[in-house]
């Protein structure tokens, strides 16, 4: 099928039948009614989104991916997508669909119009523009990269969306643009929220920039919380957030073990509040709700893709410590008075995660649930067993990667 045909037509997404979604028989070849453009498709949410679109619609998908040329970008996308499909046990059918329906073009988030404005395979109209490419870095030395990717990158994405006459611009932001606010967080503009770090600041600024979208372009600010692995396989393809914190605990434990065998059995105080919640959401749930919003032609505005019954920081950290073989921590909240060297060291190592483990944020989902209505799927229970399963999955990955670390003795 030629690309012009793929890109022809517009309207809401084109749902596949229930049987097709279950893979009972291959989708019918027909001219798609809708076209999506996805940035960040080699990333965690972007990859899951493409998989969801391929399974639930017959739509065409233009994927803009980093690469020296289209061939390199295509290879990179399909390699990353194969990893995602394996992780989520999606089967060969989805990979075949990706090869058939995804048109991959080499682009650059830091370039005006993503560097694809005159690309022959990127022509409008686009129905759903999904901007999920982002830098998840947080250390100060990455400030320029964070700003270039998350802020300038969004400007460039909006330029391209405008040029292509995109009907909807779906910006994958973060629930944590709430910054330092506590309590109930509504699905409203972030405004002048004080942020905890450069990452949050960049996402806030990017959201604000989208006010400049052309009249008629529907802008959805979609804010997932902390995205974790697939609810069925627990596998993930990107390891920030929940995984970053777990990895930092593992790194800390590894260093202690190098310094003094058994030191991880020292009970440590942790500058975190055990009883506040940390909002975790499986990646498949995020992808499903992203497509739900598009399918239901959700109006412009803010949407929280968050868990309705999130676990507490205490539950999550205790499971992490237990699986790492650490002594159970003592949660000291904001009180760091008299911290020992090891406690200070741990606190310093977790400085990026501190703000997510110390204060309560209750994310309102009224707008999302209003759109999804009675069809909204129930949340997966994130009880101790489920958290343990996610922790174990990632520790397995880490341990296999670190099997050949040099010995200390």
């Amino acid at each position, binding site marked *: 099928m030629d690309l012009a045909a793929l890109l022809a037509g517009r309207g809401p997404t084109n749902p596949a039948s229930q049987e097709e979604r279950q893979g009972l028989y291959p989708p019918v070849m027909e001219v798609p009614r809708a076209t999506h453009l996805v940035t960040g498709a080699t990333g965690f949410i972007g990859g899951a989104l493409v998989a969801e679109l391929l399974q639930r619609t017959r739509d065409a998908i233009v994927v803009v991916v980093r690469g020296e040329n289209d061939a390199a970008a295509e290879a990179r996308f399909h390699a990353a997508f194969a990893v995602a499909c394996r992780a989520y046990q999606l089967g060969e059918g989805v990979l075949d669909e990706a090869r058939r329906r995804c048109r991959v073009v080499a682009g650059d988030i830091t370039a005006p119009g993503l560097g694809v404005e005159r690309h022959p395979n990127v022509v409008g109209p686009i129905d759903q523009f999904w901007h999920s490419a982002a830098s*998840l*870095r*947080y*250390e*100060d*030395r*990455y400030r320029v990269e964070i700003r270039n990717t998350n802020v300038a990158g969004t400007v460039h994405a909006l330029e391209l969306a405008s040029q292509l006459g995109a009907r909807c611009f779906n910006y994958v932001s973060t629930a944590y643009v709430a910054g330092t606010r506590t309590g109930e967080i509504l699905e409203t503009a972030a405004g002048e929220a004080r942020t905890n770090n450069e990452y949050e600041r960049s996402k806030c600024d990017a959201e604000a920039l989208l006010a400049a979208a052309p009249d008629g372009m529907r802008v959805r600010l979609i804010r997932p919380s902390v995205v974790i692995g697939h609810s069925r396989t627990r596998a993930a393809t990107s390891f920030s957030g929940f995984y*970053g914190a777990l*990895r*930092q605990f593992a*790194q*800390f434990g*590894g*260093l202690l073990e*190098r*310094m*003094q*065998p058994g*030191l991880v059995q020292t009970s440590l105080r942790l500058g975190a509040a055990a009883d506040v919640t940390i909002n975790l959401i499986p990646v498949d749930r995020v992808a499903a709700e992203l497509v739900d919003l598009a399918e239901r032609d959700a109006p412009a505005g803010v949407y929280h893709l968050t868990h309705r019954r999130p676990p507490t920081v205490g539950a999550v950290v205790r499971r992490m410590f237990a699986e790492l073989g650490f002594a159970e921590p003592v949660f000291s909240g904001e009180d760091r008075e008299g911290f*020992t*060297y*090891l406690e200070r*060291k741990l606190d*310093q*190592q977790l400085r990026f995660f501190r703000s997510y483990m110390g204060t309560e944020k209750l994310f309102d989902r009224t707008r999302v649930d209003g759109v999804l209505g009675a069809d909204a799927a129930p949340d997966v229970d994130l009880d101790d067993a489920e958290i343990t399963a996610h922790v174990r999955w990632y520790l397995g990955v*880490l341990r296999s*990667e*670190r099997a*050949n*670390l*040099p*010995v*200390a*003795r």
Partner: protein
Amino acid sequence: MSAPVFIVGTGRCGSTLLSNAIRVHPRLASLSEMLTTATDLGGRIAACFDAGPVTADALATLLLVPPPKQTLMHRNGVSMDEVLYRPGGSARFSAETGVPAILQTTLPHLAGGPGADPAEATLAADAVFDEVARFVRTRPPAPMAAHLAALFAWLARRFDRSRWVERSGGSLRIVQRLADAFPDARFVHLVRDGRDVARSMSRHAGFKLMFIAAALTEILGVDPFESADRRYAGDIPDELAGFLPEAFDAAAFHAYRAPLALCGLYWSGEILAGTRALAALPPDRVLTLRYEALAARPSDELHRLAGFIDPEPVDGAWLARAAAMVRPPAPRPATDPATQRELDQACASGLAVIETLS
């Protein structure tokens, strides 16, 4: 050749003094820092104790090829005091080429002789290097321990000594491996108050780099001096990013001080694990010396050392010469009370153990 003798300690415990004393002994070959340099400050421990068979090429890589961490140190002018080789000038190796492990300290210490200045010792070591290289490159495949034992015996013969004594700073951490690899080895364990050790470690280039490398290794999931894999570079905190080999900031390294509490915890850990390994050996194969006693009564303690190593009667002239090398320890610098308290706590478990050593 008689049973191997290793002098082990936590590092910064005064053991270099013992190597210097042994160097002037008429019958003993002093092999200084061979294991520290061959393991590249601990990064290559597994390779140095490979049960093999290890080929001559692999052995040469460890001994005759400049190792990455020590090369970085030479290139950035942050070498340890223990390194006797002076690269550049008329020396065979420059800071840019790096210096093979065996040339860093071991050969200059052996070949230079007690009175040699570092430049003379460097040239003397260079003159022996080709002979060593020939020996290494013609070794048949064997376990690393067999290679090392053969090399050490060859070096002793080359320098007209009847037995060898290897001493490497910080080798207590590999004492279990030494005991396993050299089943008849005898050990001199030099202990020193951990609080003094920690203060010294905190400022010592080798230990600073060792602590930094340990942290970077745990963060990156690879040894950054051996691997270019940087997939987890984003996890490196800003304060450590300047110590990656590709971005090494020599001024920041000079200014860096390893936290005293960390040094104290490390010292305690080494004492706990090392003394456990030594306690499993027959008592007549272990001699414990205390640095504080050595400083206070050098003749007595060096007499004990010589008697343990060499069955021949202790050479009086050697004893006098060696004892004269011992200098009183520098006074302890002032430490603020909170830091001192943390250091005391960090060293408590190790201090409790060395109290029990006879």
